[in-house]
């Protein structure tokens, strides 16, 4: 069913912040997800859906419903632990949609209804299981029902999903990168949920004519000949994929100089962000960008690039200060590093 071609990531015009944020999250999943909020028709969904085609495949234990990683036996699911021998296979990284209107049983998993009808008790994993080690995408995340948000918050915090049903008790790993998109004019996002996202980007409709023309041309080109279009962009796609793979490999090798730590701390202090998560994420995101650029250590330039997307949504909320938070972050960045 995935024969339908997907608009290639590499062919997306503009939206550099969103693309960078997604790459950063793909390189270091520990950063904790991306929130893309903005205007209609800015290609939010297109960009995120293009991600799946871009990700390098991953190794999993064959047959494992939770995509357990052969390399990390300590976080395996119960099934994998119970089995003595594992064959590892390569599969695409899951990018799972959590659609509006999903019911709780499908999100967390439940007994397999089909089997239950014939009197068998079998656990049917839900979306959280499918998303393990991959991405969970919620379009219109601000319209998601409250009780689903609660579930997500819980699982996203613990990295584990626990289901009790009909005397069956299942516990499985559920570590995923949460990706949300939405239009803020249609509703606010709960602060607790915003907090779960490591990065947030504001997406705007491109306003300059050449960019808009290019958007339409590529869109039109894609729709007229999706296969040819995809073929045309294959090289660029492969290049980005290689960059992700390379960057992942270099992640642990990047030096974090004292001055970078200090600057990150000073930036967070200047902006009055709560807690240490901002600082930590700032360093990790800067490190991922350094890897992406092939640099050996984190510099101010890396910090500057990621500061708005890391700190923008962590500012203490003042509804009446112009909520374009990135402006505030940029101001602080300029004060710290000079214009």
């Amino acid at each position: 069913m995935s024969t339908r071609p997907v608009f290639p990531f590499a062919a997306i015009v503009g939206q550099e912040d969103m693309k960078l944020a997604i790459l950063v999250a793909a390189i270091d999943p520990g950063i904790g997800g991306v929130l893309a909020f903005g205007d209609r028709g800015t290609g939010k969904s297109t960009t995120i859906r293009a991600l799946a085609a871009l990700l390098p495949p991953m190794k999993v234990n064959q047959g494992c419903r939770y995509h357990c990683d052969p390399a990390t036996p300590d976080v395996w699911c119960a099934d994998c632990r119970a089995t003595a021998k594992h064959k590892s296979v390569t599969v695409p990284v899951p990018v799972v949609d959590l659609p509006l209107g999903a019911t709780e049983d499908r999100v967390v998993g439940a007994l397999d209804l089909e089997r239950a009808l014939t009197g068998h008790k079998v656990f049917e994993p839900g979306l959280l299981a499918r998303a393990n080690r991959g991405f969970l995408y919620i379009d219109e995340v601000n319209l998601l029902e409250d009780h689903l948000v609660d579930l997500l918050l819980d699982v996203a915090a613990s990295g584990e999903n626990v289901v009790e049903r009909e005397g069956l008790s299942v516990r499985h790993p559920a570590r995923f990168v949460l990706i949300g998109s939405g239009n803020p004019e249609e509703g606010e996002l709960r602060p607790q949920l915003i907090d779960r996202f490591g990065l947030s980007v504001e997406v705007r409709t491109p306003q300059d004519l050449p960019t808009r023309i290019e958007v339409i041309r590529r869109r039109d080109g894609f729709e007229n000949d999706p296969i040819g279009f995809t073929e045309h962009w294959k090289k660029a796609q492969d290049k980005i994929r290689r960059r992700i793979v390379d960057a992942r490999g270099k992640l642990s090798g990047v030096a974090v100089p004292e001055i970078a730590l200090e600057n990150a701390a000073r930036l967070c202090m200047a902006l009055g962000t709560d807690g240490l998560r901002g600082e930590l994420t700032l360093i990790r995101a800067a490190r991922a960008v350094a890897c992406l650029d092939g640099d050996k250590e984190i510099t101010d330039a890396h910090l500057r690039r990621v500061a708005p997307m890391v700190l923008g949504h962590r500012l203490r909320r003042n509804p009446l200060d112009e909520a374009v938070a990135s402006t505030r972050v940029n101001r602080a960045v300029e004060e710290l590093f000079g214009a």
Partner: protein
Amino acid sequence: MSGAAAWAGALQALGLFAADPLGLGGIAVRAGAGPVRDRWLKILYDSLPPGMPVRRVPLNAGDDRLLGGLDLAATLQAGHLIEQKGLLSEADGGVIVLPMAERIEPGAAARLRAASDEGQVTLQRDGLSRVLPAHIAMVALDEGADPDEHVPTSLLDRMAFLIDLTKVSLRDIEYDDWSGLPSARPLVMAGEGKHPLVMAGEGPPSTPLSGAASQGVDGGPSPAMTEPSGPSPAVTGGAGAVHRATDTAETAKIIETLCGVAMSLGVDSIRAPLFALRAARIAAAQDGRSGPDTEDLSLAVALVYGPRATRLPPQEEAEAPPEPEPPPEDQPEPPPPDDEDQEQIPDLPLEDIVLEAAIAALPPDLLAQLASLSNTKGQVRMPGRVGQAKMSLKRGRPIGTRQGEPKGGARLHLLETLKAAAPWQTLRRRAPEHGPKRFEVRRDDFRIVRFRQRVGTTTVFAVDASGSAAMNRLGEAKGAVELLLADCYVRRDQVALIAFRGTGAQLLLAPTGSLLRAKRSLAGLPGGGPTPLAAGIDAAMALADNIRRSGRTPIITFLTDARANMTRDGSGGRPKAEAEAMESARALRATGIAALMVDTSPRPNPFARTLAAEMGARYVPLPYANAAALSHAVRAAAA
């Protein structure tokens, strides 16, 4: 635009839409229910390719009906899962009709958007995990009674055409050119119907959940099902080849033109040029041309951009009607600019010719609409008045059920609980602890009723922006509103903003939870002119009434110096204006809507106090009100 011209335009849009509903995403029809709309719909249904599914989606369709779900009765009988298709997947490859689309809830709109963008419904419900094809086009019937009531902008953004039949009279459709459309653009494209021109789903064909959805998709989209509606070459037969051959030069020029015109007219949406491009190609194909010519582009631009324009190109500004009268109702139409009279001056650049056409198609009261458009951009409309009277007795309404326990005031939904328990009975009967019970319900089965989320308060700020108020500290009033806004934010209230000055009141901001927008509208509020206090009270009351009907609790906060000197009919005179204001105040009290009067006069104005008493409002003179007092007063008014 005269009724006849509007009708002609509506039919042109219809002709293009019917040739490729899926490619053009949809069409929004603003009209009351009646013979004109019926006629239009009939022509539409007759023009759609034969066999194309058409489904009506009721306003209150729940997720099980809209998206699909488990067919419990059939499942229990058959002993294996049987799904029930939703309306969206039933309409796959065809059209969904949305009656009263101006009242669609944000959640439902989001589901429609998803189907429209992705051409599929991702069903994760009731133990079912399916991806069902749902390539749909939308026909939104907008019965909005006033300009602030319309289809959610996010849906309009996914429809190529927005047509307005409110000015079309019976005479227009009987004696005008509906039957005599130029043969060049035949109404019923019987021939084309068989080989659709463009069947590409508009939205980005999505990554279908990679590993996720592919498993467990039973009867998912087979290639045969997706093929016809998947992206395919834009133009049929030989035309396609021609199109592709000239792609680089010709298409590039056309796209540049369309984007340029969109910018000149302030059409912000990035989907609009795509729709215009597609519409132009369809028009060309209908006339047997391989690619769009100037006329096709002009037509497409007029139809797609016309209703979306938010500004006129600079050089045309002089021709625009000057300060239009705000109330658009019942006004005799100014003579219409004629659609058809685009003289083609060959020397003009393509962009200018096309732009001309678009401008000719602009509604004459564009400027009047601009104000409300720019302020309500992206706003989700609250439900309107139609048929809502009974609901106002109740705060919130049930919108479905979910798993949960009946405690803390949550109500058990017995039927849903039994339904939830039903499929598990076989299993439970086998359990060792199973007693002699016939039907076992467990805690997991409990379903509780969900009510419409957070029935909250909406504060309507009615701000006096007249000259006297401006002199008397409009700035401070704005400051006070900002303080109140912050307070509303804490309480998760919605706010709406009405300003009155000159000859009438204007809705600056429809109810929204976005405080930022409120703040922006407030900052841009100009001051000056006389004080139409009665109009301000009336407007606030009408809005509050709407809010109450939609299930929220309205509070009106007036910020005014109450120096009324403009009557409803636009004539001056303090005594009459004050009398009218008192009249409005009494009407407000009769509605029982809570109100607060903040007197912004330098010294407390006795008339303001009298007026407050008359409307049953609390009276707070601003000189004595600090932030805390104001906030307290609003809360007290709410209680």
